């Protein structure tokens, strides 16, 4: 095979449910693998916050939508000879199939590296897939591919209810579910057909074990399985929603190797070259199996398997795509042994999904065959109990482990039978209440082995409880045993009623310390100089020695969740790179398998472990670094800054005391007042009647927030006194340590963000971005523009002045972010984050100046060159949120004070319209060609959109509008056809019917007053649009911007430009 010269890599776009940061990791590895060979790389990915789209990664980076049109444009321009399709998730794979089917790859003579496209099609089309597997006698669930609801019903009749619905070409099982009867099947299949032309009706295998293998094959037909994994939750729950354990725990040798052999047979038969994932259902009472699916690409599971084993699947897959054989490649951990081997683990890995369901309105908390989780954590231990307790804490959802949690259960049996995000805790509680394992098994079908392990934890808790109020009397053996079962100091402290640090002291006095172990792929059989580490209490000896000089610890960002995503990983990775350049040894702590920062190549030592006070201190005390950088990983490290500082650890950058001044809402607001800086009217809350008084005084809505919040967690808006009271009751639960502050909530003003770096209180570099949406939309859900397009210079000058004052007062030394409200040149400060913020990568890439590298230099006290920046750019950057509402059944797809987006994109354009349009398309928005439906609440909103809608009409769009909106439009000279809202007797000529008939290409639904009516027409329309994949806009300013863009430019006229082509021209 001839070596390619220039390879085009398709990225995965924004993070969304079912497709998260793991593709930044896999794409980055692919780029590294190609660069090593001297091959030029061109990357298309609109996810501007990724590491792969950073300087020093791909040779050419295009921030454009990953779709056939823009990929073809890039191909025309760059003339690559080859393409990689399997490193950008389902997005890239779907785009690749489209390029292939449309003959674009052939037209430009482009080779597909790795798995051939026909093989991809064979695995993605359920019918073909089953046919191919039948050829070698591999068993699949009996199933039927159908193209209509009627056919689905008759197929189900044949197979027998319950049946499983799956749709082809989707990620994370979207549009799939279990139907127990005809009615359910009709409903489910209707939704599924909105996304795809073909669905599969399948034999239901609920309760079977779910097992996965990661398989690698080279072009010489060498084939290995790198890892197998067992789902804690049996079949019926999507693997992305399941707790997953590697390697399998309850399979004996026969089963393990039977499934392994079948995996290899299947992958050979399909002709995959590179990496793929195969999923099995295994009968828990026999050796009967079914193959569920094959993913002929890097996947979430493969990222997990890479991190679980230390085997760099994406890197190897990229090399295999170039024609290397496995035996020609080395094991990158031992650097000596071959890559053609199967890792042996001497630890156990547990992955737990991270849900964020409470962020969504009207959503069901039940989990099942569709994916709802937004991230995951991976814990490593040498006992299952140790690993799962770590994992639960890593979620950072207020749980201390399997036990000792403050969770209330209404109906425990129901929670166990019908899984929700709380099932694990319900099981622990049931065991505590005396349920036996057999009974629980009959309720949940989770293998008894796992249940026994949870029981071990519960029993150990009882043992510890015997030392309530006298923890110092705990025998060493008992304490050591508890630590080996994964109990944290905090957890033990709760059981015995002591302070966390007292337990730490007692434990250390008894010499009970964790051992540092390496992940070396060969279970210590060969010496390995690996830096990939974890802590365990099931061990007595450290694998490594300590005492190196000039080390700096960087705390990572933890699991992706709403509000904390790939952007903080970018910050961490860049901080590590900067530290390396300055000659420091870097120690990274993080536990998110979907990240680049947890690639052991990035830092000198990677601790894949908790970001808790206990673990960070344990590592700190072993490594004795020069200090800890806590300002890169977002809120999780920020939260332990003061505690680390109080313990005596050296926290680098802005002082934790000043961080506390910013995080503690009461302190912060008082400081602003004392400095004469304007902010929304505020008050620290003492009792409810005073709160009501305050609300009356300043006028509703008001914002209620406890301190130390991220992305609006537990932050709420009350629109009247009744809401205020009910929220206060809720808020007081989450704010034991910090008082609740309420403030006036402004909605009709502009919002601006100030991202900057300061050195000893002096700002050295800054950027201002403007939100398209008015205040009221969470900053994480807002569409941001840089440089600002509608902000007065006077306003910017004032922002700088206020920011300078704050930087000096807080003695800021490192990155920070201030959020402002702006109206008529008047500014109010609404928030200060004394850490890097979500917008740092966006700002750094648009301004072409890496703010994090500068910040890291300042934190380390180095003299660094700081370029002079100007907001006067010849291009515009727009960052747009990515929502995942289509996966969140029932959720109201609307933006509000609570953040709801799961990811973001950022695109550059030669003008505002172009940047807006590109970023919208990158989030999955399809440009309407003919028809648009409007349903606008409130006279003000109607007026605001009148002129833009006129433009649409002039452009030849057919305008449909609901009742009031159509009356308003028609009476103002805009011809609009009236359609009924949802609640219409005969449902004829209604919005819903039009959606069904696919007669509407875009819905603009501006709710006047969100969340007032539980099941309003507006909600029904929005939900229907989302379920039927019709683009939806719910914000008036965004609607205006999008209409301007649609009517202002044509997609065909956009010339694609690589990142480096956007530059200043004087």
């Amino acid at each position, binding site marked *: 095979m001839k070596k390619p010269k220039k390879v085009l890599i398709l990225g995965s776009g924004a993070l969304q449910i079912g497709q998260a940061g793991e593709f930044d990791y896999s794409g980055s590895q692919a780029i590294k693998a190609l660069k090593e060979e001297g091959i030029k790389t061109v990357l298309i990915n609109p996810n501007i916050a990724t590491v792969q789209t950073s300087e020093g990664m791909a040779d050419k980076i295009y921030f454009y939508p990953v779709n056939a049109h823009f990929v073809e444009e890039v191909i025309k321009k760059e003339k690559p000879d080859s393409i990689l399709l399997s490193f950008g998730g389902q997005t890239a794979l779907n785009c690749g199939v489209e390029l292939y089917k449309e003959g674009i790859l052939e037209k430009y003579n482009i080779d597909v590296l790795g798995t051939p496209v026909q093989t991809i099609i064979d695995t993605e089309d359920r019918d073909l897939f089953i046919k191919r597997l039948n050829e070698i006698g591999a068993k699949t669930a009996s199933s039927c591919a159908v193209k209509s609801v009627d056919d689905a019903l008759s197929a189900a009749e044949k197979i027998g209810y319950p049946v499983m619905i799956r749709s082809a070409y989707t990620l994370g099982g979207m549009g799939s579910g279990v139907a127990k009867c005809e009615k359910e099947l009709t409903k489910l299949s209707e939704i599924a057909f909105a996304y795809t032309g073909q669905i599969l009706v399948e034999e239901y295998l609920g309760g079977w074990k779910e097992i996965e293998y990661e398989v690698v094959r080279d072009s010489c037909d060498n084939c290995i399985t790198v890892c197998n994994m067992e789902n804690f939750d049996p079949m019926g729950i999507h693997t992305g929603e399941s707790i997953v354990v590697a390697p399998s725990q*309850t399979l004996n*040798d026969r089963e393990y190797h039977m499934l*392994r052999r079948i995996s290899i047979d299947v992958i050979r038969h399909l002709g995959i070259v590179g990496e793929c994932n195969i999923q099995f259902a295994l009968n828990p009472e026999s050796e009967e199996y079914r193959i569920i699916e094959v993913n002929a690409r890097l996947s979430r599971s493969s990222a997990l398997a890479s991190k679980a084993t230390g085997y760099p699947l994406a890197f190897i897959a990229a090399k295999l795509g170039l024609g290397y054989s496995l*035996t020609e490649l080395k094991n990158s951990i031992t650097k000596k042994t071959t890559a053609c081997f199967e890792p*042996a683990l001497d630890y156990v890995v547990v992955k737990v999904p991270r849900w964020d369901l409470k962020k969504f309105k009207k959503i069901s908390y039940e989990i099942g065959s569709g994916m709802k989780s937004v991230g995951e954590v991976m814990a490593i231990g040498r*006992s299952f109990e140790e690993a799962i307790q770590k994992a639960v804490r890593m979620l950072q959802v207020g749980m201390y482990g399997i036990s000792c949690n403050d969770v209330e259960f209404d109906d425990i049996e129901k929670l166990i039978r019908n899984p929700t995000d709380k099932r694990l805790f319900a099981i622990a509680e049931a065991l505590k209440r005396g349920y036996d394992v057999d009974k629980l098994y009959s309720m949940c079908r989770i293998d008894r082995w796992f249940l026994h392990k949870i029981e071990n934890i519960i029993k150990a808790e009882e043992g510890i409880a015997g030392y309530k109020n006298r923890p110092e009397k705990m025998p060493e053996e*008992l304490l050591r045993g508890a630590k080996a079962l994964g109990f944290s100091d905090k957890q033990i402290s709760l059981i015995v009623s002591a302070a966390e640090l007292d337990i730490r002291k007692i434990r250390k006095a008894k010499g009970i310390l964790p051992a540092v172990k390496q992940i070396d792929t060969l279970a*210590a059989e060969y010496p390995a100089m690996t830096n990939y580490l974890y802590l365990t209490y099931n061990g007595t000896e450290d694998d490594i020695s300590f005492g190196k000089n000039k080390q700096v610890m960087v705390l990572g960002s933890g699991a992706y969740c709403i509000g904390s995503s790939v952007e903080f990983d970018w910050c961490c990775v860049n901080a590590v790179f900067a530290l390396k350049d300055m000659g420091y040894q870097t120690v990274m702590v993080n536990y998110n398998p979907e990240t680049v920062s947890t690639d052991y190549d990035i830092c000198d030592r990677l601790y894949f472990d908790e970001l808790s006070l206990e673990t960070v201190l344990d590592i700190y005390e072993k490594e004795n670094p020069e200090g800890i950088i806590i300002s890169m990983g977002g809120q999780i490290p920020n939260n332990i800054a003061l505690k680390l500082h109080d313990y005596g650890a050296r926290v680098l950058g802005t002082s934790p005391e000043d961080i506390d001044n910013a995080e503690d809402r009461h302190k912060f607001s008082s400081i602003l007042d004392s400095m004469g800086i304007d902010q929304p009217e505020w008050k620290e809350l003492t009792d409810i009647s005073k709160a009501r008084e305050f609300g009356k005084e300043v006028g509703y809505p008001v914002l209620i927030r406890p301190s130390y919040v991220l992305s609006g967690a537990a932050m709420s808006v009350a629109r009247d006194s009744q809401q205020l009271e009910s929220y206060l009751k809720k808020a007081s639960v989450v704010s034991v340590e910090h008082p609740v502050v309420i403030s006036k909530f402004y909605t009709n003003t502009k919002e601006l963000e100030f991202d900057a770096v300061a050195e000893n209180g002096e700002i050295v570099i800054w950027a201002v971005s403007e939100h398209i949406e008015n205040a009221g939309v969470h900053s994480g859900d807002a569409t941001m523009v840089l440089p600002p397009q509608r902000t007065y210079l006077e306003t910017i000058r004032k922002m700088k002045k206020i920011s300078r004052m704050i930087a000096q007062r807080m003695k800021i030394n490192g990155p920070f972010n201030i959020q402002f409200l702006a109206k008529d040149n008047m500014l109010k400060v609404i928030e200060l984050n004394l850490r890097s913020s979500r917008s740092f990568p966006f700002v750094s890439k648009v301004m072409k100046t890496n703010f994090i590298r500068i910040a890291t230099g300042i934190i380390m006290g180095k003299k660094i060159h700081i370029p002079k920046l100007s907001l006067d750019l010849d291009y515009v950057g727009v960052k747009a949120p990515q929502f995942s509402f289509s996966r969140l059944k029932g959720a109201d797809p609307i933006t509000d004070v609570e953040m709801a987006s799961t990811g973001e994109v950022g695109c550059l354009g030669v003008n505002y319209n172009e940047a807006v349009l590109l970023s919208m398309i990158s989030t999955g928005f399809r440009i309407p060609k003919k028809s648009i439906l409007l349903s606008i609440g409130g006279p003000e909103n109607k007026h605001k959109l009148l002129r833009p809608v006129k433009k649409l009409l002039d452009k030849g769009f057919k305008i449909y509008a609901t009742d009031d909106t159509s009356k308003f439009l028609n009476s103002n000279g805009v011809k609009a056809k009236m359609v009924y809202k949802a609640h219409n007797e005969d449902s004829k000529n209604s919005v819903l019917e039009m959606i069904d008939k696919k007669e509407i290409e875009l819905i603009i639904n501006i709710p006047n007053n969100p969340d007032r009516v539980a099941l309003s027409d507006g909600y029904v329309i929005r939900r229907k649009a989302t379920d039927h994949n019709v683009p939806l806009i719910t914000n008036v300013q965004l609607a205006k911007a999008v209409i301007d863009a649609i009517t202002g430019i044509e997609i065909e006229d956009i010339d694609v430009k690589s990142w480096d082509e956007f530059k200043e021209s004087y």
Partner: protein
Amino acid sequence: MRGIRTKAAAKLILKDGSVFCGYSFGASKSTSGEVVFNTGMTGYPEAMTDPSYRGQILCLTYPLIGNYGVPAKEYSCGLEKSFESGSIHIRALIVSSYSELNSHWSSKKSLGEWMEEFCIPGIYGIDTRALTKKLREHGTMLGKVIVDNNAIDDGTEAAGYHNRKFEEISKSDLVSEVTVSSPTVYKPEENKKGSKAVILVDCGCKNNIIRSLLKRNITVIRVPYDYDFNSSGYEFDGIFISNGPGDPKMCRDTIRNVRTAMEQETPKPIFGICLGNQIVALASGADTYKLKYGHRSQNQPCIEKSTSRCYITSQNHGYAVDAKTLQPGWKEWFVNANDNTNEGILHKTKPFMSVQFHPEATAGPVDTSYLFDRFVEML
């Protein structure tokens, strides 16, 4: 006190003086042996009944052991169905975390109960990674397992064991302990002869070698390791030399018999596995040596030299063939992709071949089971 069970202390003492403390499971009995490690993640019932482990204290590097219990003792074609022989051959088992509570549809008892039945002690709570690293650095070492329900240093029975010498395993004739006492014939189906017959020289044969031959419609004549099959009355079409424990050079009679078979004018096909590979090599005039810590795992990559294809294999051996000493007419068949040690030899013209790894698997990957087909084709 509920929660953390009353544990009986147990420890492993290595010849270099290092001590690993843990807790006892299985039989409450002290013992000694050669300490080796295996990195396979599944297959403890198979490994523990593999006669090649005779005389050894086995440390499993995978930390969670006992999860799926131990299956019932059932027979098929006169062989234990789920085990590699009729008894446990290891002297003791060393693990990190042991699951007394197990879960599997085929499980009939816990691992500990099964070990008790065979009077085999186990220790859990050991830092098996630290132990493995020691064995890797110092090579396989002699060790003693000391189990005591009371305190460790009370000067009683345990103390007696302390003073006992480390047993020099490599000096004992382990193969004679595990071979069959007299020839036994296995047929693919009851009362039905196979298409061909093979002499299986039992040096400590794993059941799955026999099963693999029976499955291919071969009648298996299993004979003791020192049995002179060349001048016996059995009619056969090929010779198969099994795996087994210890130093191949101790099997003098076997080597002599194989050499005789090779020297026939029209020699019968010969196939060897593991110890069998070493015996074939020694019989051909090549030499063997002891590896520092051996290969005991299910993930050993072996490259077939003629095709460059790589296979993942299951292994369990402490000795290896020195490829440099191969005599004219012979060539290396497989090599280990990690350390380049010999993994199989082949005669260039005559039907003699053998492999160091285990194509019969159990435990381990089944990628090389095609080698049985190769052998059967030659008969």
